[in-house]
């Protein structure tokens, strides 16, 4: 644990870029009085409200649940609101901030996430339920719920997407965030069309474009594992038919209690 008590002035070096005015991005330094427990987001707030109102970034929840504030901090993607300043400044008393890489910059730390959301939409993130809807809830076992744990905790912050080397090269690739979502739907016993979903992802811009770079795992501020989801989807894609049949069988019991073990 870092010593939180050291109050000192630190340098926050921010990549600035407003395409309306600037030809290319440049770095600008700000001095911030570090207080106890200050996060990177607090430091940005201090700069924006007291020093330079034009420093621009997204934020909302302040505690790592809304996914707005993902940015590049000292060369790593993470959430500004969940990163203590003191952990990043080191003995140089300096932290470098920039926008998520590989995405067009709108202004300073704000990036254009159009492709990110398009890819999310492409995997049809909604559940496709069976025709036969019970009066009460579908029955799901604890194990089935646990399998969706990771995918369901994803806050769509894009840290994974914009750390992925393949995304850097090729925007056709659907991306780890969307594949994690797809995984969630494919694995959900209530989903009617896992076969179709797998078929849709079975192309050159789907699960096979991932080169197992693992950056997505390293970047994810929620500690999720998109790579594992992708590997699972790859394997399932090869036995779609069988998987579809298993699902059909499982769906016949969706209205019934899970048998006791």
């Amino acid at each position: 644990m870092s010593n939180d008590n050291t109050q000192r002035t630190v340098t926050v070096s921010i990549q600035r870029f407003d395409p309306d005015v600037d030809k290319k991005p440049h770095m600008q330094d700000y001095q911030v009085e570090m207080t106890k427990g200050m996060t990177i987001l607090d430091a940005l707030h201090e700069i924006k409200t007291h020093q330079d109102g034009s420093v621009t970034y997204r934020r909302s929840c302040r505690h790592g649940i809304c996914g707005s504030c993902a940015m590049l901090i000292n060369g790593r993607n993470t959430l500004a609101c969940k990163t203590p300043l003191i952990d990043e400044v080191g003995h140089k008393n300096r932290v470098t901030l920039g926008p998520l890489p590989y995405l067009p910059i709108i202004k300073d730390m704000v990036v254009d996430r159009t492709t990110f959301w398009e890819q999310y939409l492409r995997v049809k993130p909604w559940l496709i339920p069976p025709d036969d809807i019970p009066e009460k809830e579908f029955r799901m076992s604890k194990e089935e719920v646990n399998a969706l744990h990771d995918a369901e905790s994803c806050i769509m912050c894009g840290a994974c997407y914009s750390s992925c080397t393949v995304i850097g090269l090729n925007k056709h690739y659907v991306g780890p965030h969307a594949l994690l979502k797809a995984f969630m739907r494919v694995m959900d016993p209530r989903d009617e069309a896992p076969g179709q979903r797998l078929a849709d992802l079975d192309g050159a811009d789907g699960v096979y474009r991932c080169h197992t770079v693992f950056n997505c795992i390293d970047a994810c501020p929620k500690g999720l594992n998109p790579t594992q989801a992708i590997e699972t989807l790859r394997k399932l894609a090869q036995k779609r038919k069988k998987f579809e049949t298993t699902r059909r069988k499982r769906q016949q019991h969706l209205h019934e209690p899970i048998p006791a073990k």
Partner: protein
Amino acid sequence: MRVFQLQRWSAIALLFFLTIHMIVVHYPPFHINFDNILVRLENPVWKVIDILFLLSVLVHALTGAYQVITDVDRAFDYRKGLAWAAAVIGVVAFVYGAATIWAFQLPV
């Protein structure tokens, strides 16, 4: 059938063949010359092994190159054409390589 699968399977095949190849051909004190190779290739089993090796290495190399190229955004849209190009190169190289292996025979 997916490029990805081709590449993974050929990689597994290569693990096997390449190890053999490295040991029997490239590992000292083996001295590469026509006669030395001929000694081995006289055996049709070795001929088959080498042809399979050739096949897997070509599949792996060409799918690999294809992946590297189609990873680039702009090339991605031409991937059909690139796949055909790779297939053609593969066939030519395979014929050429197979002829080479065939060439190691005792003069009749």
